[in-house]
């Protein structure tokens, strides 16, 4: 893998630190007029999501991380692993629970996901921003209430629970924003 000099540091660059892949979030060049220059970087651990601060002597080099984002199609889960396919190469890849994180509850079969690969292995999975799902269970709300105020929990076909307006009923199909986990609208089939 390539190495990067601090002069190449910028937001989004993926580097290896202490054996883990990190992405640079913020990079600041500091230098006393007559002294040693440093790069103060904020970096996010791509495995844990934790952001930490690191300082480098300017001009030093850091190993790059073999991290790429690819679009994969979700196939199925065997309960322990989640299986995906590259639609170009038909290669199949397997993600574990820690890579899936919250994404698992938003995935229906055949969904296209953004998957971050580290050395070819899924490191994290982002579900589609909007998903369309059927409600399998929710309390019957009051008919005629269209205000949307209040709301009630509804369980979706994948097991995810979202708050929906009172007028939305079991069996209906809704659109959900997976970034916030919020109901967006009903969808006519």
């Amino acid at each position, binding site marked *: 893998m390539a190495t990067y000099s601090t002069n190449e540091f910028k937001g989004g660059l993926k580097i290896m630190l202490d054996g883990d892949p990190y992405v640079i979030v913020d990079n600041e*060049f500091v230098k006393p*007029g*007559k002294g*040693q220059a440093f790069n103060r970087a904020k970096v996010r651990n791509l495995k844990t999501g934790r952001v930490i601060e690191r300082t480098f002597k300017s*001009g030093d080099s850091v190993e790059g991380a073999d991290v790429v984002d690819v679009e994969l199609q979700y196939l199925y889960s065997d309960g322990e692993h989640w299986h995906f396919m590259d639609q170009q190469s038909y290669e199949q890849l397997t993600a574990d629970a820690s890579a899936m994180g919250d994404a698992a509850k938003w995935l229906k079969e055949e969904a296209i996901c953004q998957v971050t690969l580290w050395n070819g292995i899924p490191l994290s999975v982002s579900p589609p921003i909007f998903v369309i799902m059927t409600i399998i269970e929710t309390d019957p709300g009051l008919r005629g209430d269209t205000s949307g105020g209040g709301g009630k929990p509804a369980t979706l076909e994948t097991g995810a629970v979202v708050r929906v307006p009172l007028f939305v009923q079991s069996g209906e199909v809704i659109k959900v924003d997976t970034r916030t986990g919020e109901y967006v609208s009903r969808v006519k089939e």
Partner: protein
Amino acid sequence: MRLRAKLLAQVRAFFATRNVLEVETPALSAAAIPDPNLASFAVCYAGPGPRHGQTLYLQTSPEFPMKRLLAAGSGCIYQIARVFRDGEAGRRHNPEFTLLEWYRVGFDHHRLMSEVAELVTELLAGRLLVAEPERLSYQEIFQQHLDLDPHRASVAELAAGAAAQNVPIPPGMPAEDTDPWLDLLLTHCIEPTLGQGRLTFVYDYPVTQAALARLRPGDPPVGERFELYLDGVELANGFHELGDASEQRRRFVAENATRQAAGLPEMPLDEALLAALATGLPACAGVALGFDRLVMLAAGKSSLQHAMAFAIDSA
């Protein structure tokens, strides 16, 4: 840009009333500063003339030619100079920028600090400054913030101090040389707190950071150098100027040795400067002020791109 032009006019008026002469010196030189922490741009001169085909360097400051003028009897001088430093870019750095540099014959660094304060106070015209300027020695700021003596602390003590402040320690820090550790602590723990609502002068640096300043024997001996901070931003660096040619040569040679050890190119020494020092530099103090940073602060901004027409990314 209007503010910048207005401040430039004020600078010229300030020095005109004090009989300090504006000068211009070459930006290109056959010699360059060997300071291992400064990188000079090198350009190739195609000719004609005796320097045909030679590598020339863009100045990182106009200090050397200005000292040649001082040695030749110019008296007090100032220059608004475009300078170039490779490898420096960020919110507060741009590889080319404007230095306001001036020299006062007969001044020491304390008297020059007073003049710097007068000029900057006048240029800021009430902005940012709510208290009188303060002067703290390099030793005092380290003692106040970190309870460390910067002149005597070992690398191990400085490293422990950094760990205690949760400073992320960069890989590859030296085991012997304390200066990079002092710079680490200064930039991470101290600088951001300096100059809150007032001008903060830091003076009397470790002898290893004296650069072109005179040393004052004592316990500990110090370099008669100062820096000015405002709002956490380093604005100016000044010296009670070293006039001893052989001492200056010794420092240059040592810096080139450090460069060689670090795998950096050695720089051709400025023999014309050393010859001028040998004929006699009048006792003087000099200071270089980052004009773009001052414009940035006067404009209430936190990035240099607001003080320049076109910063490096769009130059």
